[in-house]
């Protein structure tokens, strides 16, 4: 085999063109990895939002919590359903919530506005969602005008930071007393207020929008679903919480993945062409070298291997640079609209081992595709002709 050092040195001789190819591949991998990281971020947020032993109860026919409405009288029947987990005092762990959105002024000075999801939660919300905990400030006092906000929206809107206020209704300011974290879920893009406060401000007397209930185990889902949906007077629908959140952002997640791959394919084609041009010219210029190598006994296969490897090494180096650049994106927050509530959910770019592998493989493939034909040409040269050139 021809030593790899020969290839590295060849690349260094043609610094400019090598560098151009390198940057090209790095860009391709950067774009691809970033798109994949965003999709991974969305998936991670969704996975964290849904808990397998939780079920969401909605009015039949409504797709989202916000469009749903359940009478308070029906709520007690839901909580009395089979398989509902009880706390130490024997009370069911589950509650009716009122989900609404308010218009928030962006705090970045752009003058823009966006919707913020406000969830009216019951006193036992921390018991219902044990993952959530206040990381700064303190929990809100039950029945008060105090709220806690998810850490993802902290500081994104006017009035949304510790000690600040915002209006739910004229002359009815809510005070932010705490910031909570919930394992990176979409709840971190919400405001949690007292359910009664939200109810009176939004004129939702006698109803909640939806209910979330903890079951003894995920396997109790079917029995609970059957019992609640059987009662036609209630007109309710039961969904696993995991399914509910998957459905909520299915479209966004899909769009990002498809968009990312479409853009990447275009980029890959461009990069393959770039690598091909570079290698093709490199081969043409090194006719004599190839002839010499053949004359001193290297086989056709060794030449083929050597030139292909050269291009792959170049592309992989570019890919590595692209991955490193992409991993810097983990510090960027990206907000996407949740179609079901017209509010924003904040995502982060999530680097995973799978993405690193995919990126490097795609980078290597780019090198292989661009380099294989020129390498083949080099290996087919007759030593006599090559040396005479």
């Amino acid at each position: 085999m021809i030593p790899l050092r020969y290839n590295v040195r060849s690349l260094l001789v043609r610094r400019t063109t090598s560098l151009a190819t390198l940057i090209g591949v790095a860009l391709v991998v950067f774009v691809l990895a970033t798109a994949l990281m965003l999709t991974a971020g969305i998936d991670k947020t969704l996975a964290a939002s849904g808990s397998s032993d939780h079920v969401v109860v909605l009015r039949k026919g409504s797709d989202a919590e916000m469009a749903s409405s359940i009478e308070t009288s029906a709520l007690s029947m839901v909580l009395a359903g089979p398989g509902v987990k009880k706390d130490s005092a024997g009370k069911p762990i589950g509650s009716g919530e009122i989900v609404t959105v308010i218009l928030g002024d962006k705090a970045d000075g752009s003058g823009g506005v966006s919707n913020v999801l406000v969830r009216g939660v019951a006193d036992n919300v921390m018991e219902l969602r044990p993952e959530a905990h206040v990381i700064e400030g303190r929990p809100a006092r039950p029945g008060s005008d105090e709220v806690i906000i998810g850490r993802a929206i902290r500081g994104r809107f006017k009035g949304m930071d510790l000690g600040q206020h915002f209006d739910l209704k004229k002359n009815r300011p809510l005070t932010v007393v705490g910031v909570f974290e919930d394992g990176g879920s979409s709840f971190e893009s919400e405001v949690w207020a007292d359910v009664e406060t939200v109810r009176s401000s939004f004129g939702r007397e006698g109803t909640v929008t939806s209910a979330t209930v903890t079951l003894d185990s995920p396997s109790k889902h079917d029995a609970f679903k059957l019992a609640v949906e059987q009662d036609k007077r209630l007109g309710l629908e039961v969904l696993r919480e995991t399914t509910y959140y998957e459905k909520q952002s299915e479209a966004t997640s899909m769009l990002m993945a498809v968009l990312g791959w479409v853009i990447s394919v275009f980029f890959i084609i461009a990069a393959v062409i770039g690598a091909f041009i570079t290698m093709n010219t490199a081969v043409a210029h090194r006719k004599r070298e190839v002839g010499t190598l053949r004359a001193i006994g290297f086989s056709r296969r060794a030449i083929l291997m050597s030139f292909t490897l050269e291009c792959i090494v170049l592309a992989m180096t570019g890919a590595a640079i692209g991955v490193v650049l992409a991993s810097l994106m983990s510090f960027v927050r990206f907000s996407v609209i949740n179609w079901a509530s017209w509010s924003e959910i904040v995502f982060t770019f999530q680097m995973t081992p799978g993405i690193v592998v995919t990126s490097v493989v795609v980078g290597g493939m780019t090198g292989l595709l661009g380099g294989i034909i020129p390498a083949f040409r080099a290996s087919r040269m007759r030593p006599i002709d090559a040396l005479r050139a």
Partner: protein
Amino acid sequence: MNLATLGVKNVARHKGRTALTAIGIAVAIVLFMLMRTVVLSWTGAVDASAKDRIATRHKVTFIMQLPKRYVEDIGNMPGVTKVNGVPQVTWANWFGAKDPNRPDDFFGTIATDPATFLSVYDEIIVDPAQATAWKQDRRGALVGDSLAKKFGWKVGDKVVLQGTIFPGNWEFNIDGIYTAERRTVDRSTLWFHWDYLNESPVFKPKDMVGWIITRVDEPGQSAAISKKIDAMFDERDTQTVTMSEKALNQSFLGFFSAILKAVDVVTFAILVIIVLILGNTIAMGVRERTAEYGCLRAIGFRGSHLAAFVVGESVTIGLLGGLLGLGISWLLVNQALGPFIEENMGGILPHFRIPPELALVGLGIAMLLALLAAVWPAYRASRLKVVDALRTVE
């Protein structure tokens, strides 16, 4: 034969390489056109919004409504357009419905006041006979042409939709199909009588509307009138926020600002790729022809002439790639993707076509980047010393 044509002739020396470079540029240009078309289609609705229309909504949240009497209050304000003594104020309420047979196909359903709706939205085109029929039919629906096409609805059809916010089965008669003069109106919405919604027992509280749209005489006065409207309702039970149609559309667009930013980053990356591919090819050409350039210099050509050859060659390849890219984009966007997207995503991307200005910009960019890519190789070619150049062995 002048110097420029000599430069252009060089293009044909490595036909394979030139072709590949042009294809590479074409691919990048196609992506560029696609990205820009997405952005322009998105922002197009904002730019083309009517300057004389303002919208009033609930101050805190769009899920709460305004009392219907606010419509009359706004109509009595000075500055509001009147046609034959009728104030040009209409109202709307989001309905939310799906076809039970095709539950995954989303489309907008909005309750409005047909009498005022068509005169406030004067860019909506509908056959006068159909318009009259719609106005008189309490269960009548006016649907956009792309929605009608998608679901195969014709005038005279009866459709039953399932309400997602207001439960139950709702029966509508398709009375008319509209198109729009301005290409920014969503042509996949179903508009129907607010009265039909208001008289239903599931619509409570009664006599509430989602938002109110008002036409004003002087577009320049719209900000002042908006302020007056909000001030008027400030002391009432429900506070409002009024904004120009443009601001309303912009706030809607705000949701997508992160995506638009991402698209901008990608667009920039595309431009860099073009420079890289082209620069690479040109640099190779220059290196190969070092000896030849030495000859030219020896017989009296100046460095600037050589630079002109290099630039001419680069710009020609850029032009070729740009033209090829434009052709492919036209096929892809205007012929294939455009009609599909307008039909299925008309709500977000109402007009998905390459604007002629963008085609010019795309071509201009290809040539400009070609110029940029040629700078360094041209500089190197122009600075060659005759002796060194002639001594070069390939």
